């Protein structure tokens, strides 16, 4: 108890005297970075899990692109289950001159069977739960839809041919899905209004859903009963089947953000090690004195451990609190990507924060602090005597072990930990070597510079190892920020630049065959070139080379996913613009044989080869064709493109809808609106709006990631601070000496400024080189774009580095060099 009390007192006194500020700050930065991300991923992860149950709005959900063949609702009723239905389709909704694409969902009474709808009486009003659905003649619209139309609750909107009044703002639907933005906002209507909208036409993209809920046993029995009756196009889902892709995507992004925060943790750990070393050096006299005054080795050890633990606790708790605050900022930045409210967080990120704090201190500070305890009491008489030198091997092992333990705890995949560790070690070593060369290279300029620069550059050389650490710490933070900015900007710019000016910006889908001619004339009359109309037939793959799809083991999971979903097929005698034949031969015009041309990546994922026979169920009839060619497709050309193009004789007898795309300039934007009014069942997609939304989403996601990397810069700052602190006495003495020898305060300051500006310049150069190199590989290898040299980036890196490090360094050393020379020299003498 005495040891604890005394340790507490000593710690409090050290804290009061500012001895521990750097150490604790570095700890706090590490824990904040890690827990900010952990809190966010934890809450988002919980939301995914929670909504998996709610996301069906039922216990069982039956989906089909066609009306249901059997009366499943009657059967459910007999089985003692509740049921409800949803019929959904995309359509443009009008209000006055405004219009927007919406997902129209017509629901029956009882919807949702699981979870509750949340609505409010006006835009941004307080949302409350409700057990009702829109009454006849009414509609409930999502906030985004109202915002796009520029109206509020109380307005009238045209949905197809029906005029409905918006009575409530739809804030939340249990089955609204989760994760990335739903491009079309929802408008909820009563299913009894559906006929009056005339939105359902033959071939329309309509989704039919039946929801069932009840006692678990009844649901299970009913599921078995349903499975015996399902047609090929009917898909039954229970909670277990929901959102596996989203879960895995969330998992991957969570891991990425965790790793991003881990970079800050590593840098902060370096600062902790530097601060601990200084602390232990400065406290040797104290240990010797304690021993002189009768303290035992075990008391000193216990006291060190208690202080270490308390420091870890303090750093951990402050970091966790700040991390919690920061995660709220991240969640706010990502608010458009996260639909609906996030559930409360669990304690695990807080535990992670405390464990991180403890393991960083144990790994990076404990070896030095324990070694400090071995200081012999004789040091009190002979200052040259210290503890036996710390074996670097031991401190490295401790540091690496603590980092590996952290990684393993966070990632829980030993193999991945090994890969990441090798990658991280490689990156750090490469950056370290580059930093070393830069530091060495800088010395060549010493002779050519004035006295202030010579003094500054000499300092960098003298503290070579610390200089390299600082260059790498800042370089890494800057590099990631530059890279993210570059990739985001370059991707969008290059992509846009690759499109011709008059690339189609309007897509029309769901065009009925009898509307093709009318729409063609409509556009021609308004001076728009009649675009080609491409037929689209919906079908489901049933067999491959005579084998049922269900019996085939696909090597590629993506291929399997393609095979099991409803496909959009087309037919044509001519290959579309932008397509290129890679293998095989295109069919003869007017051929009577059933042939299909397959997009090459799709073919690879499906495991298809020339001569394979694919069979589809088209409107209940089996249709087979032989693969006779593979094509490459320019997907970003904004022309209608298809994975599978069939010879016309194969599909032309089946019901089809048509799609087309065309370009309208801003002055003709009203054309699309007029067209929608005339052909309400046709869906128009404004690509400009979609693109700007995509851009918005990318910007926000990048901003969130950049925010995580801001912690890296912050960690770099603590490294600088720790480095300045570790040279505090030396700097103070030198500046006093220089001033005694006649140097003005301004000149001493100029020397220090030169040192930090040079370190910043080196960090900036390293960052620019790294970001350029990584950007080049990302652009050319991953995104297959032509790399564009970015002059702005090249200049920004070094300038930002010099400014940031220069100012921070000066601020950190200001006090050191401001001390009156006489007091410094007296203390030293």
């Amino acid at each position: 108890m005495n040891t604890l009390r005394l340790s507490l007192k000593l710690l409090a006194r050290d804290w009061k005297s500012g001895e521990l500020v750097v150490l604790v700050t570095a700890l706090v930065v590490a824990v904040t970075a890690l827990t900010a991300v952990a809190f966010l991923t934890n809450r988002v992860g919980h939301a995914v899990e929670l909504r998996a149950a709610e996301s069906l709005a039922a216990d069982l959900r039956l989906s089909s692109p066609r009306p249901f063949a059997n009366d499943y609702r009657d059967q459910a009723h007999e089985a003692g289950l509740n049921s409800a239905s949803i019929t959904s389709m995309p359509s443009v909704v009008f209000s006055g001159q405004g219009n927007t694409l919406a997902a129209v969902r017509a629901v029956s009474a009882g919807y949702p069977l699981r979870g509750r709808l949340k609505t409010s009486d006006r835009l941004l009003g307080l949302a409350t739960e409700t057990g009702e659905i829109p009454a006849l003649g009414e509609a409930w619209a999502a906030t985004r839809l109202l915002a796009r139309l520029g109206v509020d609750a109380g307005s009238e909107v045209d949905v197809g041919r029906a005029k409905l009044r918006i009575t409530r703002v739809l804030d939340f639907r249990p089955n609204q899905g989760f994760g990335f933005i739903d491009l079309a906002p929802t408008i909820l209507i009563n299913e009894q209004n559906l006929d009056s909208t005339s939105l359902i036409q033959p071939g329309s993209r309509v989704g039919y859903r039946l929801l069932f809920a009840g006692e678990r046993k009844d649901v299970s029995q009913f599921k078995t009963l349903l499975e015996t009756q399902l047609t090929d196009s009917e898909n039954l889902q229970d909670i277990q089947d929901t959102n596996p892709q989203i879960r895995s995507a969330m998992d991957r992004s969570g891991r990425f953000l965790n790793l991003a925060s881990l970079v800050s943790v590593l840098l902060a750990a370096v600062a902790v090690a530097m601060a601990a070393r200084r602390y232990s050096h400065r406290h040797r006299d104290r240990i010797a004195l304690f021993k002189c005054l009768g303290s035992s080795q075990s008391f000193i050890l216990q006291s060190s451990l208690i202080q270490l633990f308390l420091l870890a606790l303090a750093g951990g708790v402050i970091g966790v609190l700040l991390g919690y605050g920061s995660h709220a900022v991240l969640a706010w930045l990502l608010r458009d990507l996260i639909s609906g409210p996030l559930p409360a967080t669990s304690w695990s990120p807080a535990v992670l924060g405390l464990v991180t704090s403890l393991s960083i201190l144990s790994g990076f500070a404990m070896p030095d602090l324990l070694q400090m305890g071995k200081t012999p009491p004789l040091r009190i008489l002979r200052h040259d005597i210290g503890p036996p030198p710390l074996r670097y091997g031991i401190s490295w092992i401790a540091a690496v072990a603590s980092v590996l333990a952290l990684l393993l705890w966070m990632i829980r995949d030993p193999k991945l930990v090994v890969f990441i560790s090798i990658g991280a070690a490689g990156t750090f070593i490469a950056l370290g070597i580059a930093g070393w060369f830069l530091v060495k290279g800088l010395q060549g300029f010493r002779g050519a510079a004035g006295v202030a620069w010579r003094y500054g550059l000499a300092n960098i050389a003298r503290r070579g190892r610390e200089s390299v650490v600082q260059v790498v710490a800042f370089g890494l933070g800057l590099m990631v920020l530059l890279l993210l900015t570059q990739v985001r900007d370059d991707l969008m710019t290059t992509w846009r630049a690759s499109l011709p000016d008059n690339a189609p910006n309007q897509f029309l889908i769901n065009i009925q065959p009898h509307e093709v001619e009318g729409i063609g004339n409509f556009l021609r009359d308004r001076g728009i070139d009649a675009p080609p109309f491409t037929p689209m037939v919906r079908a489901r793959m049933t067999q491959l080379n005579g084998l049922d799809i269900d019996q085939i083991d696909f090597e590629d999971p993506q291929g399997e996913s393609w095979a099991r979903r409803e496909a959009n097929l087309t037919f044509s005698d001519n290959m579309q613009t932008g397509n290129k034949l890679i293998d095989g031969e295109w069919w003869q015009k007017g051929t009577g044989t059933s042939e299909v041309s397959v997009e090459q990546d799709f073919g690879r994922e499906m495991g298809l080869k020339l001569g394979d026979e694919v069979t589809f169920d088209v409107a209940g009839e089996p249709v087979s064709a032989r693969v006779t060619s593979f094509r490459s497709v320019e997907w970003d050309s904004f022309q209608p493109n298809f994975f599978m193009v069939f010879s016309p004789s194969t599909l032309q007898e089946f019901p089809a809808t048509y799609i087309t795309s065309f370009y309208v300039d801003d002055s003709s934007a009203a054309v699309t609106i007029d067209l929608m009014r005339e052909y309400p069942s046709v869906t128009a997609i404004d690509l400009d709006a979609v693109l700007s939304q995509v851009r918005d989403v990318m910007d926000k996601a990048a901003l969130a990631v950049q925010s995580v990397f801001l912690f890296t810069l912050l960690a770099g700052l603590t490294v600088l601070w720790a480095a300045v602190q570790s040279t505090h006495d030396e700097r103070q003495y030198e500046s006093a000496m220089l001033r005694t020898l006649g140097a003005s305060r301004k000149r001493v300051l100029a020397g220090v400024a030169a040192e930090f500006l040079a370190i910043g310049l080196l960090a900036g150069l390293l960052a620019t080189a790294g970001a350029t190199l990584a950007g080049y590989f990302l652009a050319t290898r991953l995104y297959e774009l032509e790399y564009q040299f970015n002059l702005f980036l090249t200049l920004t890196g070094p300038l930002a580095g010099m400014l940031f490090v220069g100012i921070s360094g000066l601020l950190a050393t200001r006090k050191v060099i401001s001390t009156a020379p006489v007091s410094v020299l007296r203390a030293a003498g």
Partner: protein
Amino acid sequence: MERIESLKTVLEARQLSKEVTSPEGLLTILDSVDLSVSIGESIAVVGVSGAGKSTLLGLLAGLDVPSKGHVRLNGQDLSELDEDGRAALRAGHVGFVFQSFHLIPSLTALENVMLPLELGGHASPRATAMETLDKVGLTPRAGHYPRQLSGGEKQRVAIARAFVVSPEVLFADEPTGNLDHRTAKTIMDLLFRLNRETGTTLVLVTHDLKLAQRCDHIFHMDEGRITGVETPEHESSLGVDGA
């Protein structure tokens, strides 16, 4: 060189030697030293720099271990104790005053004085420390940090820290070495006054012969050996009170 032994001996050295390895080979820095000090006595160890004074002090206080020979402190043979055992013996029985003060910079004057009491688990360290600070005339400076104190004030804090546990033996290593003449005199007056008041045994290492004259016995050292013992003729080394 042997002094008259008495039953009241508190500190005794027998054939004490210290050898260290240097690039030139084995170096003897203390060679077969014998001495004994009785309770309440004050002795001075004098000699030029490098004579082995501080080495002897370190061995007598159990801060270091001898290569040969024995030290008995308070009846306990130090060579029988490990480092913790020696520390335990020092705790509460031994005080130190050093040339360079060795105050903890992050602690105030009062906290520095409280430290040995706290390490020994004393019940009311603050009150006792304040009392002792008062004795050295530093009550107004209790809340000051070492950097805010003059050299003389720092040494007075160190003296208060040494006496606060009422030690049986006080080791002082060049306690005035860093002080000007006038301050040095004030400090030594204070040291001897407290020594007298508390009945502490004083072992003073110094190269200042004038200062040594105030002790009961003076041990002269040269090249690691005691070359002579002198008992100064003075009325009373305890009679000066000028603090």
